[in-house]
């Protein structure tokens, strides 16, 4: 079994594409599509890396990232953040909150795969 990715994203076809790319590269991929319970899912699964969308139903990716960094057990967890809002201020906010890497949509598959390998050592 390969390393474990938790993908938190609410767009079904983006989920399907990322799941396909990572699975073929040997990653075990779990997904979650909603913001309110996302942090509990991260805690329960303790993945090797989280791919986190910003705009989620219920709760934003920024809120979830804040919870992850505030949790001693998860503080060092690599988080790759994806967003359709690629403005500088969003990137700066994510960096202040401790994101491992920030990627604006639309991204390339190669970039996502390379970032996941780089951050989680796959």
């Amino acid at each position, binding site marked *: 079994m390969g390393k474990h990715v938790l993908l938190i994203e609410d*767009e079904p*076809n*983006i989920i399907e594409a990322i799941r396909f*790319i990572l699975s073929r590269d040997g990653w075990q991929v779990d997904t979650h599509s909603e913001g309110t319970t996302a942090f509990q899912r991260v805690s329960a699964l303790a993945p090797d890396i989280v791919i986190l969308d910003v705009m989620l139903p219920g709760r934003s990716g920024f809120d979830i990232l804040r919870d992850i960094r505030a949790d001693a057990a998860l503080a060092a967890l690599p988080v790759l953040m994806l967003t359709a809002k690629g403005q500088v201020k969003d990137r700066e906010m994510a960096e202040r909150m401790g994101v491992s890497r920030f990627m604006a949509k*639309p991204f*390339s*598959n190669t970039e996502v795969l390379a970032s996941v390998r780089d951050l989680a050592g796959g």
Partner: protein
Amino acid sequence: MPRSTLTGTRIRERRTVLGIRQADLARSVGISASYLNLIEHNRRRIGGKLLVEIARALDVEASALTEGAGAAQIEALREAAAGHKGAQDELPRIEEFAGRFPGWAQLLADRHRRVAELERTVEMLTDRLTHDPFLSASLHEVISTVTAIRSTAAILNETDDIDPDWQRRFHRNLSEESQRLADGAQALVAYLDEGAEEAGGQTTPQEEVEAFLRARHYHVAELERALPPAPERLVDGAAELSSGPARDLALAWLRRYRRDAELMPLADFAEAARALSLDPGRLAQRYGVDPGAAFRRLAALPEALAGGPIGLVTCDGSGTLTFRKPVAGFALPRFGAACPLWPLYQALSRPMAPLRAVVEHSGRAHARFLTYALCQPVLNSGFDGPQVLEAAMLILPEEVANLPQTPPQPIGTSCRICPRRDCVARREPSILADGF
């Protein structure tokens, strides 16, 4: 005297169209050909009997030779020259320029009008791109869709040994997302087209109410009657008010309108307004109402009764604009923050202190306005409740009010679209002064 000098050009054009030789026309009206030549080149002024005779010979009304597009063209050229040092110095020769080079003058006037149109478009689109929640959500949707398409297409293109089931799924996903992208793009185009016409595309209850009022020129004749209909009936029959919150806002507005109308009956108020030079303070005193009510009543006057358009803008304690009745030359932002130098905001910082100020707008016409501003508490919860403030600013164009001889306060619409580079209150760069 632009009309007299341009008359020569029109005489020459008309004569040429009719195929009459200069010498023949001169002879028929009893002047020398050389003198007519000077007239046609705007070197000699013309009027009176000679003008009438030339007009008769050219089979046109004399007014057709002295009026028409020329005056509008001169005005457009004056506007184009405003603020341009070199052109300002040559303003005394503007009629000569238009007369000697009518084609170039027309080109310059047309380009000036086009620039003004484009600036208005930039203003509207910038306002929307920066602050419009619908546009922001729609662009997010489009980017998400493009992301799914790009990622899926790359998988199909770059994966040689893809399983047929996966291949079918990805093809289906591509088809779905392409349709979604097409729908989203069409919705965006329709939305922006509506916005350009300023007729539709209301995104907030406040905008629906403003569309409702705009359609009635901010004057509700039904509520001016001695026995008016219930405001609910007006709201129920209004096509512009599609949402419940908009109908609630409109209802509150109409009820206040009716109270104002009862305290300040239309015919009597219109007469008093003219007699008191549209001064809301003296009108408030006369009717025993607060100045805010006089502001609203003045803004609700039909232009024919007020002597011209009257604008009104209100804001709450946060500075958010809660009501907008614009006048030409004083644009009010549709979304986001306005110019911090507006007297409206100075009044907000000094509750209950009346403020009267002359302002000069940064728009192309550099129009001047007399403004009255006042901030008052709204005691919805009585004296023990939280202090809620409402500020209002009445906007009287120069042609409506007698402006005091005081230096005007330079203002704009909002920083993003204001060309005043050296403004002390600037909070962000201007795309008109500094580009994108």
